């Protein structure tokens, strides 16, 4: 009886893994990146934050080998909180130029009707602007920031 249960369990899990449908971005070629949504403006003081977040999302979409442009599949980021390190901490960096930010929010993927296909919570404490000094190809795009790398991971997971 026990053997039967084990066999049954193995059969079910293997079937599920083989026959499970792909992520919401499977068979999607193009994604439209909409502007960042800020629900609580008092928690996002930086004026450039929304654009910076959208820029990273566009870059992550591109790095995920999707085209960016008019498409029924749309992505945007809901920015719940954005903060930068204080001036004192930046001074401790002795002009290293690198800055650390905390980003809290959700990556939202929607279809043409506005129905949510995915809603992934994201929290990043790290760089949000590109760190070009680590780059090795001037004609390609610069390497990703911590935030962009995290977005890319989630996009890859949704494929």
């Amino acid at each position: 009886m026990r053997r039967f249960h084990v066999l049954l369990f193995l059969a079910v899990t293997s079937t599920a893994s083989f026959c499970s449908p792909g992520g919401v971005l499977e068979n999607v070629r193009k994604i439209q990146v909409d502007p960042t949504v800020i629900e609580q403006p008092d928690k996002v003081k930086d004026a450039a934050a929304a654009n910076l977040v959208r820029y990273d999302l566009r870059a992550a979409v591109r790095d995920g080998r999707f085209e960016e442009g008019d498409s029924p599949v749309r992505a945007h980021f809901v920015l719940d909180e954005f903060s930068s390190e204080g001036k004192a901490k930046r001074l401790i960096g002795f002009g290293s130029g690198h800055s650390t930010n905390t980003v809290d929010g959700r990556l939202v993927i929607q279809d043409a009707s506005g129905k949510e296909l995915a809603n992934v919570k994201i929290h990043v404490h790290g760089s949000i602007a590109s760190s070009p000094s680590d780059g090795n190809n001037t004609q390609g795009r610069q390497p990703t920031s911590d935030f962009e790398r995290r977005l890319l991971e989630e996009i890859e997971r949704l494929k």
Partner: protein
Amino acid sequence: MKGEESIGQVFGFASPLIQSGPLPGRSAPRLRMRKVIIGVAGCVLFGALGLAAQSEMIFKGKICWVPGGRGTILDKSQATAQCSEGRVKRGAKFVLSNLENKTVYQLEGHPKPKDLAGNDVVVIGTLDKATGTIDVADMFRALPPKVTRAKSVYIDCDACPRGMAAAWLAAFEELTEWGRFDITPEPRKADLIFLLSANPYLGDYVTRDGPDKRPVAVDITYMDVVDPNTGESYWDDSKQWGAFFVARATKDLIAEFREELDIEERVPHSAESSRVQGQYSPAFPP
């Protein structure tokens, strides 16, 4: 009424500098006379300032040179025919030639017009109509139409270690505030590249294989506006503000580019415009 009020205000500001209170023994008519004199002086001063601001104009054209020693006033047809863009001869005089407008003006007051010889330029200065001479206050290379038509830009920070790493974010913030361009993460789709670096640009953005391998001393912040297809630099400038002020230098460079683009767009190629308190309005509509 307003004139009287302003005279009164001028007197109000100026009188404490002259005297702290009425002097004993001074009669009322004498004080009134003093008021009038100060008022008139104020009017003359502000009037002169206003005239000076109004007489500064913007000109567009090509810098070329004519042989020197031919007198101060140039005949237009003669100057355009002899206007040369090649190697500058000793004692040559630099002129601003605009074939569309059919104008030729001599240039004075600019320390290095030779550097811009043969280029289309924008000149801000005061025109002396009697001698056909522009006293140059500022002069810069005109931006090509590709720059004025550009919709998207890509920010590239090349050779940006240590303190230079602040340049990318500063450029992003400044361009976001400007709001004119779409900042794209795709360099191949961008109309222009904003190239920031601690080393001068060598014109090799398209042809270079790999990153800039020159040693970097973060002292000068360079900015070039580059054509992504040809690698040609349309605009360049630099600020030697050290490693701690890279962000500020970057923002300042973008602001400077913005100002030049703004001037460029307000004045059609064939027009000369008057400049009044930062507002440019065509003086001679094309």
